[in-house]
């Protein structure tokens, strides 16, 4: 039977697809928040890859896990900062649409 | 400032508090403009149970209007009864027998205690504590039982008559009153331990909803609201009526001006009312309960008259214009909570929603009285 869960390629494909979804969302989303969500997907895609390599290929199986944990910490920090920026931007421009923020490019 | 103009400057949204809302104790609607949890503007919208009592006064005889008085403020109906019969007695020059006066004061003060107890329970309920409400109801039921045994009804009393009372009280009632006072005196420390001293309650009331004495004056606020702002004014003391001048009681005044001060004023008023009742029981003379000569047809002299009494929520005033007929030409009822509520819009600006509701509770609103 097809044992998907024991094959590295499944995870790699999943990671690639998540990354792709993230890139797709980053371009497509009109608002800062949508882009933030897409960025989280990109990070998740990377994490999945790390974890997969860690499980199947790494001799020291702590490395990938620790990498993923660091990514999580960075993602949390990123989300906090992004949120504060979004709130600040909204307060000044009354919008989080990227089109409306063209004057930020000053 | 209209809400549209506001919303351009600030992140605001409108919230309709009521007419059906657990915190408004009736059908009051407050149009809130909120900035997050903060109240930017709160406009009370009245009139959901408006019954045009003033027009009823113009097409009923003086005696027929009497039951309406119990329907204004259903929680302290006897104060309103008292104000009205005293006004008519003033117009007609009727002397009321002393026993009747004592019974009137006794029952009014009992009614005041019951009103304050209900307010106490409902106020703590507004703050989220449910149990004190039922303890207060327990005590209040005793008062209602006592008053029922005299007046026959439990809430919308119609007990006083021009020149006296509907019927006399008996010794059972007086001993019942004494027992009740004993009971309530033992319960008051429990209330203070359970509620007044509670740190959560204090956090919610101290320094919340400050109303200065000047603001009270500009808005015509009276009653515990005024006394919680450090003004020593009580119609019973300052414009004495009935037999209040012969009784020894204090007017509780607190200078903190916050919700806690209003709370404490009412709790102390319960104690003072108990003192009044004790004196009434001790000093009550025997005798008639009706004035000997009460005209069959009440036709006051032409002119206009004003009479104010201290109801549980503040100064209740009646201004009436008589054209000499058996019906009033004009009957104006000055409801205390109407004025007390009118300061809500200014005072609640910038408050947290929870604080605004605590503040509204501390004003002790009775909607039928506001809407009349």
């Amino acid at each position, binding site marked *: 039977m097809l044992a998907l869960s024991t094959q590295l390629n499944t995870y790699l494909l999943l990671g690639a697809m998540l990354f792709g979804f993230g890139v797709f969302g980053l371009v497509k989303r009109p608002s800062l928040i949508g882009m933030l969500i897409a960025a989280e997907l990109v990070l998740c895609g990377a994490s999945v890859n790390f974890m997969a390599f860690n499980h199947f290929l790494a001799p020291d199986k702590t490395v990938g896990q620790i990498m993923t944990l660091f990514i999580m910490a960075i993602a949390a920090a990123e989300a906090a900062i992004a949120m504060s920026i979004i709130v600040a931007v909204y307060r000044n421009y009354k919008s989080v649409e990227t089109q409306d923020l063209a004057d930020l490019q000053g | 400032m209209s809400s549209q103009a506001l919303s351009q400057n600030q992140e605001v949204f409108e919230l309709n508090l009521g007419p059906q809302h657990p915190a408004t104790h009736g059908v009051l609607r407050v149009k809130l403009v909120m900035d997050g949890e903060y109240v930017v503007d709160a406009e009370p919208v009245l009139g959901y149970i408006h019954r045009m009592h003033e027009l009823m006064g113009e097409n009923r005889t003086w005696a027929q209007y009497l039951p309406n008085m119990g*329907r204004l403020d259903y929680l302290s109906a006897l104060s309103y009864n008292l104000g009205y019969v005293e006004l008519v007695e003033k117009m007609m020059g009727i002397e009321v027998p002393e026993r009747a006066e004592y019974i009137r004061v006794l029952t009014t003060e009992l009614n005041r205690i019951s009103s304050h107890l209900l307010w106490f329970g409902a106020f703590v309920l507004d703050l989220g504590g449910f149990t004190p409400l039922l303890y207060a109801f327990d005590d209040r039921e005793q008062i209602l039982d006592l008053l029922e045994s005299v007046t*026959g009804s439990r809430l919308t009393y119609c007990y006083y008559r021009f020149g006296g009372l509907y019927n006399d009280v008996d010794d059972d009632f007086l001993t019942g009153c004494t027992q009740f006072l004993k009971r309530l005196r033992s319960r008051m420390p429990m209330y203070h331990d359970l509620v007044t001293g509670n*740190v959560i309650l204090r956090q919610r009331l101290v320094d919340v909803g400050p109303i200065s004495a000047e603001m009270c004056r500009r808005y015509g606020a009276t009653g515990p609201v005024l006394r919680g702002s450090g003004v020593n004014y009580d119609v019973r003391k300052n414009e004495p009526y009935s037999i209040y001048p012969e009784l020894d009681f204090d007017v509780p005044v607190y200078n903190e001006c916050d919700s806690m001060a209003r709370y404490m004023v009412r709790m102390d008023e319960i104690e003072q009312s108990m003192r009044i009742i004790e004196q009434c029981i001790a000093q009550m003379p025997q005798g008639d309960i009706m004035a000997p000569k009460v005209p069959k047809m009440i036709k006051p002299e032409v002119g206009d008259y004003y009479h104010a009494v201290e109801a549980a929520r503040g100064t209740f005033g009646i201004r009436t214009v008589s054209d000499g007929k058996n019906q009033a030409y004009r009957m104006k009822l000055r409801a205390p909570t109407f004025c007390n509520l009118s300061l809500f819009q200014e005072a609640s600006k910038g408050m947290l929603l929870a604080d605004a509701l605590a503040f509204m509770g501390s004003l002790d609103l009775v909607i039928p009285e506001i809407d009349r």
Partner: protein
Amino acid sequence: MAGYFKSILTGTKSLVTGLKITQAEFFRKPITLQYPHEVLVMTPRYRGHIQLVKNPETGTHQCISCGLCQKGCPSGCITVRGEKREGVKGKVLVQYDLDFTTCSLCGQCIENCKPGAIEFSLEYNLASTRKEDFHYDLLARLEEQK
């Protein structure tokens, strides 16, 4: 700093006091009445809807159909009709209707009644889904009492 710890201590103390009170109340007996199983005895002065007083001697009412109760009623919920009959002095009551939906139990009718023909009943458990159930024919109710 001392104030900080003191406020924490006093606050905790007040909370514990509250808990003690409610826990003590928990062990006390309920004071409520289980209504359909137990009923209260109404005080003699209880104001139910009005009813005609039964004269113990004659077994009938004492109303002279003067209509003073009808006139005095603030909300106009009483309809009294009497008619002249031969051989009887005064008017004979043929109809005494009470619209209890508008009655405010003020007692003006009872005070106005010279012969003392009406009184408050002690009935309190009146409930119905129909408004018409509260249009009482007091004469018929007096008959039922017999």
